[in-house]
C-alpha cells in the first residue's frame, strides 16, 4: 500500500466516524429528508464525472461521458430540490394555514 493510499484511507476512516457521530443526532422524523440529503451529497461524484469525462479517451466515447455527467447531475439537482421541498413542509405547532390548529 502506498503512502498516498494510506493518506486517503485516513481521510476516509475519519470521515466515517464524523458521519456516524453527526447522523446519529438526526431525529427519526427527519429520516426521509436525511436519506434524500445524503443522496444529493453523493452526487459529488459529478466532480469525478466532469474530471474523467474531460480526459475520456476515444474508446469510451463522448456519448458515455455525457451519460455519466447526466446521471450525476440528475442526482445532484434532483436530490437537493426534493430535499428542500420536503424540509419546507416540516412545521412546528400552529403552522400558518392550519384551519383548526388549536393547541393542546
Amino acid at each position, binding site marked *: 500500500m502506498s503512502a498516498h493510499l494510506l493518506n486517503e484511507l485516513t481521510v476516509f476512516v475519519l470521515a466515517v466516524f464524523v458521519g456516524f457521530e*453527526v447522523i446519529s443526532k438526526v431525529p427519526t*422524523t427527519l429520516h*426521509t429528508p436525511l*436519506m434524500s440529503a445524503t443522496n444529493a451529497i453523493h452526487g459529488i461524484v*459529478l466532480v469525478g464525472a*466532469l474530471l474523467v469525462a474531460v480526459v475520456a479517451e476515444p474508446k469510451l466515447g463522448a456519448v458515455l461521458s455525457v451519460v455519466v455527467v*447526466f446521471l450525476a447531475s440528475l442526482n445532484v439537482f434532483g436530490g437537493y430540490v426534493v430535499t428542500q421541498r420536503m424540509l419546507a413542509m*416540516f412545521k412546528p405547532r400552529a403552522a400558518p394555514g392550519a384551519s383548526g390548529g388549536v393547541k393542546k
Partner: protein
Amino acid sequence: MSAVQPIVPNALAIDVAYLVTGVCFILGLRYLSSPKTARAGNLISMVGMAIALIATAFELDFAQWLPLVFGLGAGAIVGIYSARAVKMTAMPQMVALFNGAGGGAAALVSTAEFLKLDPSTSILTPDQTVTIVLSSIIGAISFCGSIIAFLKLQELMTGRPITYAGQQIVNGLVALAIVVSAGCVIANADSVPAYFIALGGAALLGFLFVLPIGGADMPVVISLLNSFTGLAAALTGFVLGNNVLIIAGALVGASGTLLTLLMSKAMNRSITNVLFGAFGAVKTSAGDAAAATGSGVIREATVDDVATMVGYAKEVIIVPGYGMAVAQAQHSVRELADQLEKKGVEVKYAIHPVAGRMPGHMNVLLAEANVPYTALYDMDDINPEFPRADVALVIGANDVTNPAARNVPSSPIYGMPILDVDKAHNVVVLKRSMKPGFAGIDNPLFYDPKTSLLFGDAKASVSQITTEIQAL
C-alpha cells in the same frame, strides 16, 4: 497519483475549495439534527456542492466543456422537474431512482478511469486496480438494485418477493464470478475482459439480490443501497485521488449504514434475514391467530359508531401505516384531527420506525398534510401513552400493531417491537378488507373484543368520520 493533471497552476486553491465543500457537507448534516435548522443545513450543503463544481470547472479546458454542459443541463432539468413534480407518497421510489443514478455514475467514472489508464499496454498498481474494481462493482450493484427497488415501489412489478428454486445458489455463483474476475483484474491478467465480466456480474447481482425482497422490507433495502452508493462514491475518490469525493462518500456510507441498522433493529431481524429471508412470501393460514386468541369473531363498526367514539374521547392516538400512503389519506387524516381538536380531543400520532416504505415515510406524508412535527411521536415515546388513550385509530397499519409479535413465539414477527395499540381503551382499525398485512400474518388485534373494524378506502372512511363528527 493524481489522475488528472491540472491545466491551471492553482491546484492548491482547488484543493482548499474541496476542503471547504467537505466542511459544508458535514455542517449540512449537522443542521439536520433539528427540523428548525434543517433547511439551512441543506442550503449549506448546496453551497458546498456549488463550490466544488466551480472549483472543478477551473481544471477543465473550455474546448471540452460543450458536451459536458449538455449532460449537466439535461440532468439538471430532468432532476429539478421530477423533484418538483413527484408526489410525497412516491418519495421512496424517487429516492431509489436518484440513488441509482449516483451509483451508476460512480461505476462509469471508474470504468472511464480504468480505460484511460490503458491496462492492455501498461501494468497497473494494486492501489489502482483494487479501488477501481471495488468502486465499479459496488456502484453497479447499487445502480441495478435501485432500479429493481424503484420498479417494485412504483408497482411496475410485484412488491411481493420473487423467489425460485436455487436462487441463493445462482446469486452465489454470480458473486463468485465477480470475485474471480476482479482477482484477474488485480493480477493484471486479461484485465479488460475480466473487468467487464466483473462489472456485468455486479449489475446482474444488483438485479438478483433485490428480487426476493418484499415491499415491507424496502426501508432496509433503500438504506442499504444508499450506503452502497456512498461507498462507491468514496472509492471513486480513491481512484481519482480526490479528497472531497472520499469525505462525501464516507458521510453517505455512514448514514446509510446507520439507517440500515436502525431499520433492521426496528423489525428485530438481522440484515441477512432481510436480504435472504424472502419475508412475506409464505402466507400462514388465516385461522391461526384467531385460534390463538380464542375467538375468530370480529366486530364491524359503522362510520357513526367510530365518529361517536372518537368525537367524545379525551385522547386519540392515530397510528398511520403504508395503507394511508396508498390511499393518499394524509390530508383527510389531518382534517379529522383538526375537527377532533376543535372538540377538545387531544390527538397524537404514533409512528413506527418501519411504517411505510422508507425510513421516516409517515413523517414526511403527515408533514405534507401540515401536521406539526411536534404531534408525531416515536414508538418509544408513545407506547407508555396507549393505556391512557381512549381510542387508538389505526389507519392502514397492520404488522407494526400485531400483538403476536409480543406473545406468540411461533409468529414470524415474534420479537419485533410494536406499537402497543391493544393497550388503548378502544381500538378502531380502518381497513380495506380482512386481507392480512404484508407479512401475510393474521393479526389477533382484529379479534380483540375492544377492537372495531371499519372497512373501506381509508381516505373515504376518514372523510366520512370527519363529516359525522361535525354533526355531533
